[in-house]
């Protein structure tokens, strides 16, 4: 380690690893500093007790893009996207609806829903395709545009006008900024179906189906589908972060675990490395933060090194996590009323209607937790039996909407909230409670503490339209650049945002390699 370090990456989450991989493959000597005891961030596997293993805070994802797979040779390092899964919209009376890519199956489906569903999917995938230039490139600057900025905008305009055609373009412009509630009510009759689609539009955001911009968040999610179908993360060697870690190390990246960065060193407006919490310094002329932009600027850089209004804006980034995680270790497979065992391989949603979701969201606005939360349930051990002992299973549940600040305090209420979630699950799977041998409940507060995501937000900042594209994470730090020379951002807080897509990391690496700072 006597070699000169070209770039330090703060945080070995998947975006940090993608960025590190690209930079190392371009010939840079890259060191990745990770405060935790494993690489992977929110996608790093977790263990409960000794015998129960979970894929991570993230439990389902779309594959990363073909470009990232190819450039970082991920397939060579064992990356295999999982099998396509269905989504099951659970019904309290056992009349569940199974939703596949192009069809819906279940009792009491209207003919028009059955007919409209594939048409609707096709149209929205086309919208997602039209937006692709925005997501896969550095977002264009609107002031002092360079050639690349103009090209991105031109391509976007072309895609929307010519790619969609006139009629579809009008429809796209109509729905782009409105809410998913109105759109789904126009299209469908079935509450289970509307609930399931709306759940995907809002999960991870402090938004209900009626919040403006929820069509956009859904389109953002559909971007991932262009790389392949959604699958469950099932831990093990095929998982993305495992391959990314191997790939990065193969390219020469040094990953230092249990290494906590206390501050970014700055002199004369330029970074020259980082200071660790043990007092050591690590020097490099390029520092790339995969941390939440709020903690990057407020904690690691500090207000004295920033202009006043920029420093203030950095504290005003909106993003308070509203999703909690429940991990259950089970000594058997739960039985869901009206569901066959094979359907448990999919993603189960308790989102029986949009009204149900909106009401759950309403509680979180007032620092309360609904008795009827939105739940996204997976059983990863059905895809990888190594996750639990023979005959045992692990269940991973995302719970929305759970507020970061809870009236009455989390210390007092955490066990009560977990109990309510388990009770709600019990209404659909009566034998579940009797199977539980261990559990782990991560509130947004715990997610903040364990994953250093400010206020426990998955995406390091809300994916609302005012914090997207050239406004992400904030004006003055878009395009992966910051006011500090040599300091860049590569995490979910940057465009295009969260999700296990690696795009912020990839775009940041491109930006750095083009900046002329790389040797």
């Amino acid at each position: 380690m006597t070699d000169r370090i070209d770039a330090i990456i703060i945080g070995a989450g998947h975006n940090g690893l993608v960025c590190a991989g690209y930079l190392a493959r371009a010939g840079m000597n890259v060191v990745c500093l990770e405060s935790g005891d494993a690489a992977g961030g929110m996608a790093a596997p977790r263990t409960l007790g000794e015998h129960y293993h979970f894929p991570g805070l993230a439990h389902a994802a779309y594959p990363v893009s073909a470009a990232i797979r190819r450039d970082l040779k991920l397939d060579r390092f064992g990356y295999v996207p999982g099998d396509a899964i269905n989504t099951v919209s659970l019904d309290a009376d056992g009349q569940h609806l199974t939703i596949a890519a192009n069809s819906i199956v279940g009792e009491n489906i209207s003919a028009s829903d059955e007919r409209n569903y594939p048409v609707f999917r096709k149209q929205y995938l086309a919208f997602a395709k039209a937006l692709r230039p925005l997501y896969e490139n550095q977002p264009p600057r609107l002031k002092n545009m360079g050639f690349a900025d103009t090209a991105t905008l031109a391509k976007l305009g072309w895609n929307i006008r010519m790619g969609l055609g006139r009629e579809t373009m009008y429809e796209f412009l109509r729905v782009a900024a409105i809410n998913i509630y109105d759109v789904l009510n126009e299209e469908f009759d079935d509450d289970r179906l509307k609930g399931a689609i709306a759940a995907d539009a809002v999960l991870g955001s402090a938004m209900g189906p009626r919040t403006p911009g929820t069509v956009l968040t859904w389109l953002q999610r559909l971007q991932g589908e262009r790389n392949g179908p959604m699958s469950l993360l099932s831990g093990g060697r095929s998982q993305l972060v495992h391959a990314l870690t191997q790939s990065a190390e193969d390219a020469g990246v040094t990953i230092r675990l249990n290494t906590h960065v206390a501050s970014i060193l700055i002199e004369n407006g330029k970074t020259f490395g980082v200071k660790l919490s043990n007092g050591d310094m690590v020097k490099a002329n390029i520092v790339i933060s995969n941390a939440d932009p709020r903690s990057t600027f407020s904690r690691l850089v500090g207000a004295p090194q920033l202009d006043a209004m920029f420093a203030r804006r950095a504290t005003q980034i909106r993003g308070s996590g509203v999703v909690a995680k429940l991990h259950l270790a089970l000594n058997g497979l739960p039985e869901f009323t009206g569901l066959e065992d094979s359907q448990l391989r999919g993603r189960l949603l308790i989102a029986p209607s949009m009204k149900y979701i909106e009401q759950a969201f309403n509680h979180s606005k007032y620092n309360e937790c609904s008795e009827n939360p939105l739940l996204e349930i997976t059983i990863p051990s059905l895809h990888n039996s190594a996750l639990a002992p023979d005959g045992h299973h692990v269940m991973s549940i995302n719970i929305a909407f759970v507020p970061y600040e809870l009236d009455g305090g989390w210390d007092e209420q955490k066990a009560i909230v977990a109990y309510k979630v388990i009770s709600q699950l019990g209404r659909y799977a009566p034998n579940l409670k009797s199977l539980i041998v261990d559990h782990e409940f991560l509130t947004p507060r715990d997610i903040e503490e364990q994953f250093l995501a400010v206020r426990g937000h998955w995406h390091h900042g809300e994916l609302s339209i005012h914090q997207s594209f050239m406004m992400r994470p904030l004006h003055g730090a878009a395009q992966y650049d910051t006011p500090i020379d040599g300091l860049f951002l590569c995490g979910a807080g940057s465009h295009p945002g969260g999700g296990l897509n690696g795009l912020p990391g990839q775009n940041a690496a491109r930006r750095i390699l083009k900046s002329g700072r790389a040797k």
Partner: protein
Amino acid sequence: MTFPLTIEPEHFRQALQRTPFHDRIEALSSTEVWTGWNCYKVPRVVENLAAEYFAVRSGCAVMDLTPMEKYRITGTGAREFLDRLVTRDITALKPGRVTYVVWCNDDGKVIDDGTLFQLTQDDYRLCSQHHQLDWLLMSATGFNVQIRTETHDIAALAVQGPTSYSVLTAAGIEGLGSLKPFGIVDVSCGDIAVTVSRTGYTGDLGYEVWVEPTDALQLWDAIFGVQGRYNVVAMGLDALEMVRIEAGFIMPGFDFNTAEATIRDSHDRSPYEVGLGWVVNLDKGHFTGRKALLLEESKPIKRRLTKLIVDGNKPVGEAFIYAGKNGKQIGEVKCTTWSPVLKSNLALADIDYINGRLPAELWARFDYQVELKWHTAWAQCHAQSKPFYNPDHRSTTPPNRF
């Protein structure tokens, strides 16, 4: 961050508030020419403009400073906060000293200027022309600092002119002899406590005396009770305008647009463009606007607020500035005065530089009236780099006694 409510509930019935000195000024005011300054009623002229002007230059003029915006900035992070706020290296600022500062927005455009008083270790007062509480509070994000307005909690008099030291001494304020320019001292005037700083906006020897509002009239009476040849005169804003131009002092918001108060790009000004480059220290560490100013400093300057002596004795008023007589229009006069001591027409003008240089020949084209008849005239202008008027007695310590 508290907002002391010192204003009466019925205050809105009175458009302009009275300062603690108001009764005395009103008693002296024969002209009744009043104006508003920061929501206070202040005189433009008390009795006689010429007498007030000459009191600054040859006697002792007294002006009510109470309406000036005053902020108290305290806390262990106060120094770090102020260092990031202002463009100037304030390393040399110590308790009991004052420094002139300017602060910018993120784009490196001037928001305001003012005087920064260090009262004790973590206790500062910032005085400014314009309301700054919002900017200061928003800038405080990330610093351990408390900021409050104390504009209405402290009364102040500017006591300015060659005899001001003698007048204050005769008024019973001892201990000013060793006070150097930009020094602060806590003293007494009879049985009231006052703080005196050797500061001012006139370019002459002068002091600012800070006092509790309840003691204000006692201070006034002590100063105006000084008998004899010192020529103690109450002064209004019009005379101040004359002397501050003579001294080459600028007034943000009048001589140039302040940042955050303009809508159009390029209508605000950087410190370099208003002649305040000397209070910008780009190598002092980070401050708000530094990055923008570094970039600006590396390029040829686009324009500058320039001190001009205008030939002739016709009142210049509003005028355009041209590069050569009948040449290209390159600027405009922002403020102007006839200087009785210098016998010159003085002006500050916003002038576009050509290729980073001030054009060699500058002319003003202006309109003036003779017995209600308008005339147009051209007058050549001569740029000055130094203050028009800067007498030695301004900075002598101890000051001359009269």
